[in-house]
């Protein structure tokens, strides 16, 4: 969604990753851009990706996005797969409270909020996932000034780094098949188990398929392991 506006920190790599991992298995996947002046029926989508953008971009997107709030809400309830990263993750919540105490409204699909606090949380991050995925770890890079507070299930617990708010050692949010996270890197290529989890959820919803073939993930886990080697405590 909004690839021309919400495209910070290499997050477009997640799309490249999903597309290739489908292609390599002979699963036909079409990537459809949804943005200003290029609106599409949202219910044709199986996996939705929302990245983060600059403040300026997010303001432009907000007004436009609001018209689609109900559609998104229905899709999430209907177990469509969503991956929202950083600004996109914050966006799904109720509001963002900036450094001056001003409230910037979000889409309000979930009742969490994000607060700007002093100092950006920047660095490599390693979490242990709550999705029962093997391996247990998910690695990435975080870079955010906002702290998100919520009572939903988290994507994982923080082993190295900050996560949602640097306090409760939790990272991300999971509700049905919607995942919000602060992890860049981009997250999916280096964590193929998580990428395949999303693909499988989408296949299950659409075709009731319960397993997918394994790929040779030597390069993927090579990069994963390197982060572990350099940055795990």
């Amino acid at each position, binding site marked *: 969604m909004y*690839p*021309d506006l919400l*495209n*910070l*920190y*290499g*997050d*477009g*790599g997640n799309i*490249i*990753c999903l597309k*290739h991992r489908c292609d390599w298995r002979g699963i036909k996947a079409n990537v459809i851009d949804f943005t200003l002046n290029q609106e599409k029926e949202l219910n044709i989508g199986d996996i939705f990706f929302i990245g983060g953008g*600059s*403040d*300026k971009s997010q303001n*432009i997107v907000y007004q436009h996005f609001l018209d689609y709030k109900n559609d998104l809400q229905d899709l999430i309830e209907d177990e469509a797969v969503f991956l929202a990263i950083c600004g996109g993750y914050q966006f799904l919540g109720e509001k963002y409270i900036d450094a001056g105490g001003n409230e910037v409204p979000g889409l309000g699909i979930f009742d969490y909020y994000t607060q700007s606090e002093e100092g*950006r949380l*920047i*660095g*490599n991050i390693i979490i242990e996932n709550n999705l029962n995925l093997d391996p247990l770890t998910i690695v990435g*890079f975080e*870079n955010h000034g906002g702290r998100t507070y919520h009572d939903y299930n988290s994507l994982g617990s923080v082993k190295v780094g900050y996560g949602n708010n640097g306090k409760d050692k939790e990272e991300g949010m999971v509700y049905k098949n919607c995942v919000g996270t602060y992890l*860049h*890197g*981009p997250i999916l*290529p*280096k964590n193929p188990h998580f990428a395949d989890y999303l693909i499988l959820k989408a296949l299950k919803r659409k075709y009731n398929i319960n397993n997918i073939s394994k790929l040779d993930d030597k*390069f*993927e886990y*090579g*990069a994963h*392991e*390197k982060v572990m080697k*350099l940055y795990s405590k």
Partner: protein
Amino acid sequence: MKIRYFLSVIIGKLIIIFLKLFKRSATALPGKISLKICPYLLEVINDRCENKLIITGTNGKTTTNNLIHHILTSSYDFVLSNLKGANMPQGIASAFLKDIKKKYNWGIFEVDEGSFSEVLQHIHPDYIIITNFFRDQLDRYGEIESTVSIVYESIKPLDSTLILNADDPLVANFKSLKKNSVYYGVVENYFSNQHQNVIETRFCPSCNDNLNYEYFNYGQIGKFGCEGCGFDNPPYNYSIIRIKGNGKNCFDIKAKEEIFENVCFKYEGIYNAYNCCAALTFCLEIGMISDVVIERIENFEYHLGRMEIIEFDQKILKITLAKNPIGLTEVLKNISYDNKKKSILFILNDNPADGRDVSWIWDANFETLNVIKNLESIYCSGRRAEDMALRIKYTNFPTHLINVDDSPKDAIMSIINENVDSIYLLPTYTAVFQTRDIVFDYIKNSHHYLDLSKFIKNFFS
């Protein structure tokens, strides 16, 4: 007051000697310590330079700086400049400590966007060149809009003459500062494209509406116009009006009313056309003789490893710094013009000076790898070699041709021994100097070996 100055100079000099003894780079640390001892050291530098130029922007600072320095030294005796790319206050101070003079005709400084406002508090430039703004090291600078606005706000109170890239909307928008401004650019050429292949800003910096493009030269640089407010490229004072596609990097340049034909520059790439044009614009603006300027552009050679061409054993080895998405995209595009048998080595580090976040490689256009002809193998090295290999895998490039070795030295040895005609080494910032040293050590040693074998052969014959 003076005591602090003298003390800072003595200690700075001692640190330089000390670092040289241990063969360590002395481009930043001496200045850093000296600035601690004497916080007004930059003012001293400001007072000693009769004229000053500051170069800022994301890409092309070091090349433009070195090129201008090379041109100026043909006509001026004393030019102070931080030539090695150390572009924060300590880098400027270190350059001064290495070359202390009572007076300089010119001070030419490249300044990192993040240090720009700090440096301007001490150094008051007569001219400022702004090359371009791209995303770079987001872990340090944050988003590109905030970088641009810091530079914009810092220039507001100054009366410097601005030399602006008219083809970058983010730079051209500095027109609204209503300073004395000179514009340069490059017209449509064989590098130009109708489609932008790397996502960069596409919105009008003036009113946020959509920018329409007639063509892109690279990134968001090209010929643009805004539907909303009419914002477009300011008319050029200096421009490259033709790039010859004959394998050499030769340009026709229009400088106000005059035209200079067939000016050749040793280093390829559309970005170098812009660097040349910026340097030429500045040098002609300060009244240098055009013949001298052109001669110096043509005989400019780089010895920094950022862009270096080395010939040995009938091979051509090129080292090119590639540190952000636009830079890497353009470097790969240049390689695609080379039809010879070749191998490429990427060295990806994630040290603080590289940017600790390596996700930027996913914003570069790697699809070019699949159209590069006669590409025999790819090597990935550096602290994050595996991330680079993974990025390349996701272009569908055959994985059995991708070699991963996180030791740069071993990787360089392997690629140098490949049976190819062209070797490309593409290091990130902190790997540049190391790469250069390894290559030169190898050449030196292998030639000793050759000489020795020749000697033995001659001896017995």
